């Protein structure tokens, strides 16, 4: 299974990657760090799943540049851009936030579901305070796998 994980927070990225690897040792995980690299990688390559953080900067951090304005709904921007570009993709969200500019993750999930239909696999609420998210992520991956084998 090939996953694109778009996440700018190194600690969270390491945590999530480790959890993904524990599901399937053969899993290939590639990393995007911003809306820009997330969109570009998804356009350039076919992934079995895009696992998107919601709050990410617009561009990758590089020398002398901090990646620009952070978008609190950066994950959603990636989805909308890919839809507009006609890219075929599956996606899920992994986020630590409760709300996004006064919207709850459920409301955003509902909208993503409307936009992507059955290509949207829901969201996982990541937390540093407990490890429940790991089970949720594993279930989500299993669900994606099942649909791949159909």
């Amino acid at each position, binding site marked *: 299974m090939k996953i694109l994980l778009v996440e*700018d*927070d*190194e*600690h969270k990225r390491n945590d999530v990657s480790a959890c993904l690897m524990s599901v399937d040792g053969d899993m290939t995980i590639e990393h995007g760090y*911003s*809306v*820009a690299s997330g*969109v*570009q990688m998804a*356009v350039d390559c076919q992934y079995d799943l895009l696992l998107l953080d919601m*709050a990410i900067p*617009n*561009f*990758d*951090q*590089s*020398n*002398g*540049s*901090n*990646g*620009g*304005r*952070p978008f609190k709904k950066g994950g959603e*921007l990636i989805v*909308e*851009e890919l839809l*507009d*570009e006609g890219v075929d993709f599956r996606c899920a969200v992994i986020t*630590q*936030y*409760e*709300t996004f500019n006064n919207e709850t993750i459920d409301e955003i999930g509902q909208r993503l579901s409307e936009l992507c239909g059955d290509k949207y696999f829901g969201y996982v609420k990541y937390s*540093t*305070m407990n490890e429940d998210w790991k089970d949720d992520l594993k279930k989500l991956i299993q669900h994606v796998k099942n649909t791949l084998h159909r």
Partner: protein
Amino acid sequence: MDRKKVNQIIDALKSNRHDKRLVLSFFASSCNYEEMQAVYDRAPQIYRGLLSFSFLKRAKLENVFQGSPMYFGTPAEYVEKAAFIVGKHASIINKYVDASLEVDRAMLWGHYEEARFKLKEIEKFAGASFWSAMYDIKIERLSKGLNSSIKLHNEYYGKSQQMVKWMMNAAFRSSSLDYSDPTTGLLAAPEDSDGAKSFNGVMRVFCFPWTGIDEGDWMCYGFVTSLIDLYNGLMLYLPNLKEESRNDERVSKSIGHLSSVISDHYLQKLTLLWGLNNNYRKDSQRDAVIYSYTSGEYDNTIELATPYLDKHPEDFELLRLYLQAMVLAGRPMPDYNREGCILERIKYYLSAIVYHKGTLTNHVRMLRGICRSQHLIRGMMLLEVMVESLNLRFLYGLFSENWKYNKFQDASDSLFYKGEDARRQYLSTLSMATSYVNNVFSQEHHQLTSDYLEVSIGYQNGNYIYRYFEESLKAGSVPPFLLDATHTYIFDELINKELCREAVEFYVKARINDISIDFIITSYQKKQILAKKELLFQEIPLEMAIYMQMTNEDEHALYFAYKKYLKYKEVKKASEIKTIDSSLLRYFLGNVATMRILTYHVLRFKTEEEVMDERIRILSNLNETFGDKVYTEEISSISRDKKIRELNAHVDESKIYVDIQSIKDNELADVQSLFDNFEAADNQTKLLKKSGEAEMVEYFRDIESNVDIIYVGVSAKQREVTDYKLDVLTKIFKIVRDQFLFNPKSGLDNYLSTRIRHGTLVNKLRNSFEIGNLVTNTIHGEYSSNDFWITKKFGLRDVKVLKCMSLFSQFSTQIDGIISRIKNDYIQVQTEDVRDKQDGCFDYQISFFDNDVNDLLFSTDIVSSEDCVDAILDILWKHTENCLESVKYRLAQAQNEMLEALKQLEKNIADVVGMGNLAWGQFNDAVIQCQSALQTDVQAVIAWFKLSGFVDFTFTIDQVISSSIAFVKDNNRNPINIIVRQDTDKDELKGEYFGALYDMFHDLLNNAQDNENVTKVGGNCIINVSQESGFLNIEVSNPISVSIENSLIEKVKKTNESLSALLTRGRSRADNNSGCTKIFNAVHNHLGSRRNKYTNQVDDHRFVASISIELEKIKAKKHENIAC
């Protein structure tokens, strides 16, 4: 009339057995107007003062809201009692009406002394009132300024009852002409609290009448105010009476009678409309102006209105007609002064509206501020309703409220009446052009007056009007003062007919032609258009993108609109669109394809720099076609931003620095003599070699292994020489090393201190915590309570407060401890001689260099002291790279510690507060944001720790200032406001001086920020840069607290005297960590000239740092203008 009651009251008055206050109470609460009049007429002379409430002529302000009883009743009862009292003091009130008009006029003209004098005159004959006190505060503010009005406010405040205190406060807070506070915040009490309605009713009518005056119990407070306040309240209240109350016989009788004894134009006009009497005195001069205007004789209107307005500055309706006549007569906009007196300002903004110059919304905001600030001037309420009506841009309602507050008769008064007949009848009594009345009610032909008053009065038919306006707009015959309303009307009609495409096209075309056309579009109308957006994107993609930009649609939605048009044009970037002479395309490229929108186009642009480059390409194309300086200005601005970014990158990349050249030039005199000794010893070696004594081979047999071991050694003499050489070389090495590390002007530690430890590092690492309000600052050594989360957000009480306080305090301690460790322990230099920083990552103990020194000893490349110094410096730089790796490791460790602490804080707070707390989500968000921002910030700090590579570049003084300001703004939660005033040539300066200038500004601004953080004085930090006699004169000043001024003067004096000595002795921290020594160092030692100067002083409650820099020394030669 109840005669028995009247007799009873009179008997009670005459009798000694009754408390007269109770009699008065009974009289006021139980009698109607007629009965009150009868009692008054028949009562003994001695009680007439009591019965007419003469005590309301207050001797002093303290008495207001004191003493007299209140009478609750219906609004009509209130009106008749108030009318009775006022009527009994008709002579005072009449005098007051005339005198207050003079006060109003003096205010409008800016004759404040005269206004104050007349105000005091009124107090003499009418007594004290809060009206007078409020007016006094407002006069004081405008005539003598803020401090003086604060003083006066405090005086009144100190001697007032609570209600009057609130009023004084409201008067003071609204006394500035640019008053824009939301009024509700100034109301006495929350609307839902007990009794708040009455209190707030009083506050509304007397302090914020524009918020709406409703009937209610509050009216009864009028009887405990003062004579003047009672009358003013009545006059504000009357036009706002509900129809039911207005038609009550008690009102009509009492007010009808009152208007026969009070000569107040407002009252006369109102009672005329109500049909109560006909005492209204027409003003023939005014009527002539109106007649002339409605007859379309605009030049004549102007001629007649001019002398009238000179005498009646408060007649804002006529001022409007005059200005409209000016427009219609084709006269240029008069040159009014928007900074002048109140009247000048009103004229300025009203004429800007009438001439349709600038944006209606902005002018309305300014006029609104004036009206609300000066609402005590009686004409202001008319101006307020006029302005608000214009702001609504509703053609049918432009004049609907005027009748309430216009003291003169006007056609718009007919809107008071319902039905054509009543309105027709009223209009026929006015001095207006004969055709006017018929035109008002005509539904077929349109010879409307220029302000379309007929549309409102005559309920003009929509279909005719729509066509009329459509044609008028096409013909360009809509007067400028109705452009916004007329456009809004057409747009409304198109949307009502569901012609969304036409509506969008109309909107875009109108605003492209004249961007100042100010439509009102409701959110419902916006939704209607967006519901059809897919179709509209196909049909009119360009117009839709422009419409969405003009109506401030969500940025992301606008981005997709921009993309739709790019697809339609089959291009990948906006810069590829062929720029033709089209106003729509010009607008799209200029205002839609902006940096913010291009930023979203991540498939095309991978960095902000690429976005900037694309925008520059678009602007260059536009400039080529349209040649407008607005495009070249934006190109310059973007180029400037790019330059600042590059300079900021320089700042970050030049933190690890040693001014090698300065050290070589000034600090290594001892090295040469030592090197001479070294060389002399070398010569001795040569001699020894020649004599064969240099080398000796020694053989030993290892007994155990029975193997010969051969040692190639040196002779004792030679060893002695070699040891001596090593000793000398080690000495040289240590001299160079110590200069490299500790030279107070140019060494590594100086730069670590200036560029990293002083302010920079702590701000950068603490910032993410401060933004989330997760840490607090210390006061007297203790962390202040985190009220933001504990009380404001979580709303905690009891024991939880203490627990949370402790957790937050521990967290602050922990984070500051980690940051402090990085700053004070890790980013420090140590050697075998300087051992007080044993955890310092910059560890240059000589033992690390034993091998290097040995290698140098035998190196054949070193033939001069310069070679020797260069070789040692190479070794030191290489070692520095290892030290930098050590710092990075420590920073990564520290980051993990801080993240762990953050995680623990979240858990601990969750245990106390509970995740069910309403603010838990916000706290969680703050923690996540902090977690992410901290990692970004630590990465940025890690990036500082690399060796500087010199790249030649040039810069200007404003660029280095902008870079310094950017740092202060990016790394402080509440950055100080910085104003830069520059009057210099735009000389390019040599890149080598950028660092020193940046250090200087950084430290100055950092000090100003620190001062503001502690003292919260407010005000601006001002940077003045000028040029004189070959010197750049820089002055950086910031306000200081008055309480520390004297002690600061002393400190500054001492510091000025000791800076040079402190620097030479390497005691840069002995300047109270102010950074002054570092600034002194930058100015005197790193900016090219010994003639540079730096001094500090305290002047007029400001700390002022003055710096002079010899420009010629730092200026780049023309050919040195190398891009960064």
